[in-house]
């Protein structure tokens, strides 16, 4: 994530989404479920009340208000239904991959299993499997349940859950033993010990999560709901107490009359309209849609959060624990420099190093070839007369022997310092005294030195120079850590390297801290120490020995390629197994909270304009001076009230895309983010309704018969 990378927009809403959500939205109007959202529940009660009033005493005004109040509740339900609908579509896709699976359960224990052919198996439906059962899965079969491979090795197509078509290897023992029910074995066979019964497996949880069925409200959402409920009660009181006051005021000037205020006080329809306009309906309507959409944004990035709490915690993270290998660095050492000894040309060393690496298929070997090509423009020599000498555990070096047309054999080798020194000595050569110095320097910088030597015919072998292999920090990581620092997040690199190497990499990558020679226990202790200081910690992990730390961390992102123990312990799983995704998850968590805060601010700021619309509309008839508050010059009391109610409803629909997409998030300090959001949503929230209500009023005033 470079600084300009924002959390991607998740597509423009297309009309089909709205239509598909309608039936589900309609079901959400059931007051028995709606009461959990106090703001919208009050709106629904108000709508029901005005319906009764409109039936009893019909007028254009009464019916227009009634219809728009119902639309207000409807829009809220629709927003939630649309948010859920996107998850439901994904869940349906997942379900399609699940077919009625038949499992081949072993009738012996693992010790009694001798091979797939003629193994004692019985066919049972996958739903009948219990934890601990052993099942045999062969090429072409679907793995019936989550489990660990106990015998065998196989390539597995996990595209059903990851969307990634390249097969992965699953084998017994180690960190690649976990398999997921619903994935397909492509080649070979494995025996799997079932760890999750049908209905409790990973895929089942995933479906439930993306569907939103298991969605629980997050701590901040609960707190915000309480605040919104309190504001609703305050405004309810403010509106209810207007009535006796209005009757008292009206009694002083009984002659005047209009459609909104008569001797019995303010009409019920007007009171309900005022109430609905004042309570925070905008955020109340969109609150759950924001939460669902936040989870959805994670799913779109192939991350499964086991709880919404974890997503929110991600936004609060103070400390990120990052594994060096695979996260900070590419994980493979790469050639970064050729250091020739005096008297040797750089090109000569490069040619020799390239030759010595021609047969070396390891990433290190490939990187030497690439580097020689890029830095020195060296091309590989003709392959005739070249005999590769592969790396062996005994020789601890690799290279080639080249026989020239005149029959002279030249050996080119590269390897670790000790092995190469011995080889040179055996070839009758002396090692230049500057070699140990070079080797030591590279080691100090955290790199790995490889000596390159040649031995032509009977001439004494000689060392040409040293290849500097180093752990290369991934592109853009330094910028990312700078960004994180600006956001107030401390990064700690965890590595098994020695402290010197670790320090060098840490300095290059720009992390704030590192722990070297780290054991899983060190990780756990570091997390606990940070938490004792009140910090929230996020980490990634894939191995079983990471499980305790993953469980202890506030945000534990397990890799999908990891063991089931790791996946159980973490509260999120990354299906792409990309540890750097943790940084994106933090951004999504922050964006979720920001969206809620921004829309709450907007909602409250809206009230100012609504007061200016409704208060003069109601009371100007008895206190003509109050008409001065009608700064929007709305055409009539009825039209003013209708305009406020219509604006209130339309703004919900207008903000649905924002609620689903989330407010724009750019990593920055709290101060600058706050200033921007306050400007857009605070000031915008004050100004927008003045313009909107005035515009609606211009249209509404054209409706015939609106004024009684």
């Amino acid at each position, binding site marked *: 994530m470079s600084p300009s990378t924002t959390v991607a927009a998740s597509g423009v809403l297309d009309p089909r989404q709205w239509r598909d959500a309608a039936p589900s939205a309609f079901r959400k109007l059931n007051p028995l479920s709606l009461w959990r959202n106090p703001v919208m529940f009050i709106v629904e009660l108000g709508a029901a009340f005005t319906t009764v009033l409109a039936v009893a005493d019909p007028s254009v005004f009464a019916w227009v208000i009634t219809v728009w109040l119902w639309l207000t509740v409807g829009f809220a339900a629709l927003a939630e239904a649309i948010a859920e609908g996107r998850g439901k579509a994904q869940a349906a896709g997942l379900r399609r991959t699940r077919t009625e699976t038949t499992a081949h359960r072993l009738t012996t224990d693992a010790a009694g299993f001798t091979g797939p052919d003629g193994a004692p198996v019985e066919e049972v439906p996958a739903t009948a499997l219990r934890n601990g059962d052993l099942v045999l899965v062969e090429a072409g079969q679907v793995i019936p349940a989550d489990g660990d491979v106990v015998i065998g090795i196989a390539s597995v197509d996990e595209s059903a859950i990851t969307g990634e078509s390249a097969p992965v290897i699953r084998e017994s023992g180690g960190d690649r033993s976990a398999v997921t029910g619903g994935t397909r074995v492509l080649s070979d066979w494995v025996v799997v010990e079932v760890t999750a019964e049908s209905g409790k497996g990973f895929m089942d949880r995933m479906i439930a999560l993306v569907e939103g069925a298991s969605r629980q409200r997050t*701590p*901040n959402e609960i*707190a*915000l709901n*309480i*605040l919104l409920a309190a504001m609703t*009660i*305050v405004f309810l*009181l*403010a*509106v*209810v*107490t*207007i*009535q*006796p*006051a*209005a*009757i*008292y*005021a009206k009694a002083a000037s009984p002659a005047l009359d209009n459609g909104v205020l008569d001797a019995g006080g303010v009409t019920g329809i007007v009171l309900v309209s005022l109430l609905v306009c004042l309570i925070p309906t905008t955020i109340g309507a969109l609150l759950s849609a924001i939460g669902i959409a936040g989870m959805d944004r994670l799913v779109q990035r192939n991350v499964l959060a086991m709880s919404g709490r974890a997503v929110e915690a991600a*936004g*609060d993270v*103070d400390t990120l624990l990052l594994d060096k290998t695979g996260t900070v660095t590419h994980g493979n050492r790469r050639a970064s420099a050729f250091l020739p000894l005096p008297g040797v040309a750089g090109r000569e060393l490069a040619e020799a190093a390239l030759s010595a690496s021609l047969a070396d298929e390891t990433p290190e070997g490939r990187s030497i070839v690439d580097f020689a090509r890029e830095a020195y423009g060296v091309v590989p020599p003709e392959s005739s007369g070249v005999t590769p000498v592969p790396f062996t555990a005994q020789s601890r070096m690799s290279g080639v022997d080249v026989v020239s047309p005149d029959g002279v054999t030249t050996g080119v080798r590269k390897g670790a310092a000790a092995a190469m020194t011995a080889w040179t000595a055996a070839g009758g050569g002396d090692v230049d005294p500057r070699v140990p110095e070079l080797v030591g320097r590279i080691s100090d910088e955290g790199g790995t030195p490889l000596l390159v030597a040649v031995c032509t015919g009977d001439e004494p072998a000689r060392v040409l120079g040293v290849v500097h292999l180093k752990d290369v920090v991934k592109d853009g990581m330094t910028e990312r850590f700078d960004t994180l*620092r*600006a956001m*107030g*997040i*401390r990064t700690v690199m965890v590595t098994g390297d020695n402290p010197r190497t670790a320090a060098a990499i840490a300095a290059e990558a720009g992390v704030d801290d590192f722990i070297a020679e780290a054991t899983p226990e060190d990780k756990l202790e570091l997390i606990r120490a940070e938490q004792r*200081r*009140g*910090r929230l910690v996020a980490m990634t992990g894939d191995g079983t020995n990471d499980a305790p730390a993953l469980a202890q961390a506030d945000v534990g992102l397990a890799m999908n390629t990891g063991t089931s123990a790791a996946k159980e312990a973490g509260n999120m799983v990354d299906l792409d197994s990309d540890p750097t995704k943790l940084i994106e998850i933090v951004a999504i*968590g*922050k964006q979720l*909270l*920001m969206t*809620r*805060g*921004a829309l*709450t*601010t907007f909602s*409250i700021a809206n*009230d100012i304009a609504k*007061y200016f619309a409704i*208060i003069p509309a109601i*009371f100007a008839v*008895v*206190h003509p*001076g*109050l008409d*001065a*508050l009608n700064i929007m010059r709305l055409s009539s009391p009825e039209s003013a009230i209708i305009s406020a109610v219509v604006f209130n409803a339309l703004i919900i629909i207008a903000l649905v895309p924002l609620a689903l997409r989330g407010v724009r*998030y750019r990593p920055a*300090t*709290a*101060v600058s983010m*706050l200033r921007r*959001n*306050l400007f857009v949503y*605070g000031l915008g929230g004050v100004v927008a309704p003045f313009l909107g209500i005035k515009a609606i009023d211009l249209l509404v005033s054209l409706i015939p018969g609106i004024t009684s």
Partner: protein
Amino acid sequence: MAAGLPTLGFVAILIAALVLACRPLGDHIHRVTTRERHLAVERGLYRLIGVRPDTEQTWAGYARSVLAFSAVGVVALFGLQRLQHLLPGDKGFDAVDPAVAWNTAVSFVTNTNWQSYSGESTMGHLVQTAGLAVQNFLSAAVGIAVALVLVRGFARRTTDRLGNFWVDVTRVTLWVLLPLSVIGAIVLIAGGAVQNLTDTVTAAGVTGDPQQITGGAVASQEAIKNLGTNGGGYHNVNSAHPFENPTNWTNLVQVLLILMIPFSMPRVFGRMVGNPAQGRAILAVMAGLALLSTTAVVLLELAGPGTVPTALGSSMEGRDVRFGVGDSAVFAAATTLTSTGSVNSFHDSYSAGGGGMLILNMAVGEVAPGGVGSGLYGMLVLAVITVFVAGLMVGRTPEYLGKKIGARQIKLASLYFLTTPAILLLALATTIAVPGNHAAIQESGPHGWSELLYAFTSASNNNGSAFAGLGADTPWLNTVLGICMLLGRFLPMILVLALAGSLATARSVPATSGTFPTTTPLFVGMVGAVTIVLVALTFLPVLALGPLAEAL
């Protein structure tokens, strides 16, 4: 606007005096309330009332002490008034009527000092000095004590112990209120306020008619009346009476006394949480709002007379010639911005807009700077709500002073800001719905509504000042306003203590650059905006029917 010039000077001297006084006073309050050692005098008092001063209380224990102490205060004050004719120093007055006695007892214990009676013709020396004056000290001390607990809630970590009520009240009374009120009383006596224990003297007035001249321990009552943001005057006309507030400069001293402690509390807060900048931010919100409101009241008053003066043909109606329109307006703003409620002019006579501002000052919960203690805790609750709404916008779980603001904190803070409007609006609506109450309202139309609205706003927010014009001495109003005062004081206090309890048990989160900063001008502006938008807007409909309708 030439008439405004002397007022500008008055305000300038006032601000200068406050700037000089508040920081050392805040440091002093911080010192005496956080001192480890108990002085001999204190130890003697603790032995007398039987408390172990080193045993700290939980929030619930503290709340029980607050309630028990206040309940005893109400009963004692009620008894003293009902039995005054049997006790010495009765000045020949009879036992106080039960409804008045209830109303007065509650009024003084809740730091409201709403007076539905004429002090000089109802209460004898004993009630004034041993009853009312004592509660002037103690109710103020209770307010400061509760504020201290909330600040401890922010300052402390992972504990449920929040201090000892008896220690806090003792120290605040002995070392803050007593010395300051002695100084204040001496200054006022020097300025001409009376201090004696004589009976009423009858003398010939300027017109030759006999005139009743009351004496009494006026100056000592005066000092604590203002210092403790109490407001209960010795005389019915309160600080307009020449024996209470003889000259223009005693008027200045009185306003200074009113504002001194409330404006010092943010300093105490900043020191206790170990970050004076946090205190300065809160002070800035208070000062900003106070300045806005005072300017508005003064300008509105200088611009035009209100309903009553217009009817009488005099813009000075309801003001004393000693103070003039401008200085009276400053006094009125100060007394309603705090929970004092002492008056040196009749707020009823203010222009509709000016009177409306006074109501609004009280309706926002008296947080700028508010009553002694209550102003600080009210403002901190608003800060918590601000931090929550705005804090979400920076993408983190909101935190204030290192404490996460979660569901429980928001629940308590929301209930706090809900309570006073709820009491006020429900009582007001019920009262106006009962036709029998309409007779108590002097004026008809919007001004009459303002009179009633003022009374309920004043009682529910524990201010105690009144729009003259409302005949408040009816059984209904005495009782209902009494209930408003009681609930308006103690329900918020319990919520504040519970909030302190929930904060103190939490651990503290270290601040990072991702943390929402609460010392910036941006934050100051936001708390001010939340105060106005969230709280004041609640009262816009009822204000529209009274002051706004009248003003526009």
